[in-house]
């Protein structure tokens, strides 16, 4: 059940009504059942996998609390091993087998490992990381092991963020699931604001940009001119941002309507002035997860040598790349971002000296604009690897952009001039909203003002109805992050 489907638009209000009508003691069992139903709308049998992961992490965490049954570390390792093994088998086995086959072929050994025909379970990376985060929190003593299995299972499978995040922390979500959540009109309006804004970003911006992106990237590499590829790369960066942040907004909006606050996943990432800043604003729930559960345990920025620090950074970004998908393109994407970070660290003093020599203040507005644009270009360039079908394909696209920067016409990319103008206007609106959202919870501010709220709802609904990509003649695009 996609968020941008009619079935979700029916499912959500029905679930909300029943949730508020039911007595408190059955609210969570009901939400758990609703969440499993939501998940089973994709592949019913994979709900068993989620249940296995939930049961294993629940049990291991409980056993960590009962010290006489063994050492805490043992249960931690068991929980990590089991979950990562499941993740590996369903997500990385074919990739590893393919690489192994190629390696043997290079060595001249006739061995091809068998491939698995299993489908990738939707959202497996998200719920596995959420459950693992909980196990590590319990291991570190930051949180007592949850006794109530229903509450814990709901924490893992809570439908708004189950399939594509935000990857919630147990410290944030579990206590909220235990609290009573009576009906609150203000929360409903706040949630609806987020929900509508998410729908607008998905249907008006992301899916319209997808037409241009698919046009350029689905053709054999080198088919189009450099300008067309540059526009497609920029369009894909905006598409994936709008697509993913739309999912997060709809998830946060759906949860907010129930009185539950999920963490913010994006903070105007394309207004960032550096790659480091970009990663503080992009997919926050994943980047902070890696920071808390991988970067810091590796030593983080407190490592004694710069080399070790940079190795830690590279490790985190390579794993982050592979987390997105089992392909060399994602590995390359992670690698590039790791290298960006290392280069940024290595040139930090040099850049400061250059600014001082040129007598440009670091707070200079023009400099900030230049940084934002330059940073966007770097991020968009790296996203070429994320979107391309192969590393060679991505390199061919980048080569074309560099060697033939004015090649091709933007209007020969599957969209009309008016459609292109419409999406440009929507992107300007997106940046304006992002800038406003940095000043505080925008949904709360809008929902708190009666006429403004309805004016915003009206404008968004009209925008979606007129300019949204839906109905006959369109290929409905799934949320990109579903595949992870």
């Amino acid at each position, binding site marked *: 059940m996609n968020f941008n489907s*009619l079935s979700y638009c029916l499912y959500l209000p029905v679930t909300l009504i029943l949730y508020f009508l039911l007595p408190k003691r059955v609210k969570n069992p009901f939400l758990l059942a609703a969440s499993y139903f939501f998940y089973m709308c994709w592949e019913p049998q994979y709900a068993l996998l989620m249940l296995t992961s939930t049961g294993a992490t629940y049990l291991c965490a409980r056993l960590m609390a009962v010290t006489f049954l063994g050492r805490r570390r043992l249960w931690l390792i068991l929980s990590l091993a089991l979950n990562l093994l499941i993740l590996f088998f369903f997500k990385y086995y074919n990739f590893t087998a393919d690489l192994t086959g190629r390696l043997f072929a290079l060595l001249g050994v006739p061995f091809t490992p068998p491939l698995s025909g299993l489908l990738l379970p939707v959202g497996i990376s998200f719920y596995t990381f959420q459950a693992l985060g909980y196990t590590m929190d319990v291991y570190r003593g930051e949180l007592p092991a949850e006794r109530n299995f229903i509450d814990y299972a709901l924490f893992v499978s809570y439908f708004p963020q189950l399939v594509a995040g935000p990857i919630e922390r147990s410290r944030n979500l579990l206590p909220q699931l235990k609290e009573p959540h009576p009906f609150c009109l203000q929360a409903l309006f706040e949630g609806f604001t987020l929900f509508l804004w998410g729908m607008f970003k998905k249907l008006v911006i992301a899916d319209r940009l997808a037409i241009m992106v698919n046009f350029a990237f689905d053709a054999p590499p080198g088919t189009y001119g450099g300008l067309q590829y540059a526009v497609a790369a920029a369009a894909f960066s905006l598409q994936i941002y709008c697509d993913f942040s739309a999912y997060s907004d709809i998830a946060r909006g759906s949860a907010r309507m129930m009185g539950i606050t999920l963490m913010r996943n994006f903070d105007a990432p394309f207004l960032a002035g550096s790659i480091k800043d970009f990663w503080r604003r992009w997919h926050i729930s994943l980047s902070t997860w890696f920071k808390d559960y991988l970067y810091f345990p590796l030593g983080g920025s407190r490592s004694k040598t710069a080399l070790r620090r940079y190795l830690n950074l590279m490790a985190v970004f390579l794993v982050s790349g592979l987390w997105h998908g089992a392909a060399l393109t994602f590995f390359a994407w992670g690698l590039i971002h790791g290298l960006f970070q290392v280069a940024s660290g290595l040139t930090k003093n040099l850049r400061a000296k250059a600014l001082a020599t040129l007598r440009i203040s670091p707070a200079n507005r023009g400099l900030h604009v230049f940084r934002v644009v330059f940073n966007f270009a770097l991020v968009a360039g790296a996203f070429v690897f994320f979107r391309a079908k192969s590393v060679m394909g991505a390199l061919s696209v980048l080569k074309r952009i560099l060697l033939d920067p004015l090649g091709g016409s933007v209007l020969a990319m599957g969209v009309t001039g008016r459609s292109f103008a419409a999406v440009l206007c929507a992107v300007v609106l997106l940046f304006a909203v992002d800038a406003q959202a940095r000043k505080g919870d925008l949904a709360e501010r809008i929902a708190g003002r009666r006429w403004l709220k*309805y004016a915003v*709802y*009206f404008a968004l609904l009209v925008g979606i*109805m007129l300019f949204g990509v839906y*109905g*006959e003649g369109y290929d409905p695009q799934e949320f990109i992050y579903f595949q992870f």
Partner: protein
Amino acid sequence: MTGQHTNRLKEAAAFCCFLAALLGFVWLASALLIPHREVYGANWGGYAKEKRGSLDAIFFGSSIVYCDVVPAVIYDRAGIASYVLAGPEQTLTATEYYVKEAFRTQSPRLAAVEVNGAFYSEYTAYTKANIGYMPPSLNRLLATFRAAEPEERLGLLFPLVNYHDEWPHFQNLRYDADNLAGYTPMAEANQIGGIYERPVEAFSQAVFDRNIESLREIVRFCKSRDCKVLFFLAPNHQPWEGSYRAMLEEELKTIEGADFIDFNRRFDEEELSGYRDFYDPQHLNTRGAETFSAYLAGIVKSYVDTPREPDKTLWEERVNAFKTVRAE
């Protein structure tokens, strides 16, 4: 009144304003964005411009009707005001609702229904046009649920789903009276060889029974409105297979209160020629339509004993309009 009550009232008022504005927008946008339709059937906009209660005969069915029947010629020959209210590849279930909807503004003496659709599949490719141009009414709603495939229903209930992408081309809201009264001219003459029978692909008894039931319902409905019913098969170089036509004829015989004419048996009387009168094997060109309509006029006259006084100016204009089309 407490502050809380006042607050709630204001909230309710604001919500009602929002809802009204939204509904108003949806209505206006749907009307502005749906493409204008004046030819190839489903021309409800033009039909709505006909003076209430001014028509004596209405022709229903599929594209065969709007290509073959020229109301201007019928008027010229018989002095009877008629109209073609058909749709492309229209199923008989949809036709049932066309008949019922047509009677909301007219009270014809004759409803002539072309029945080639008896062997169409349950849904055809033009549901969106056939139902989507009907005026908002209970008949349209029933047609949406009974005659449209499930995946088309949302777009028929909310036309913006189908037409929202037409925003760069706003349409004229106004329709004028159709100067050909629902007829769509096909000028080209293509030489059609001999008559050969069209096979009924994937015949479904259930769909056929449903179609017959729609025809029965049309008769029941028309009877209640004191209107005669004529079922007919238009002249065609690709008639359905003989055994199926015989089966249809047998079924139609069981429907009391309606006549049936297979015009394929009267090719000679109609003076139609496969060399000059057909646009394609199933549709007549303007010349063929003129010839057939002149023949049809005599039959229509036998059903409409005392025709109403038609608007002579309008119908003379229509006769001239057809003559112009015919001359092109």
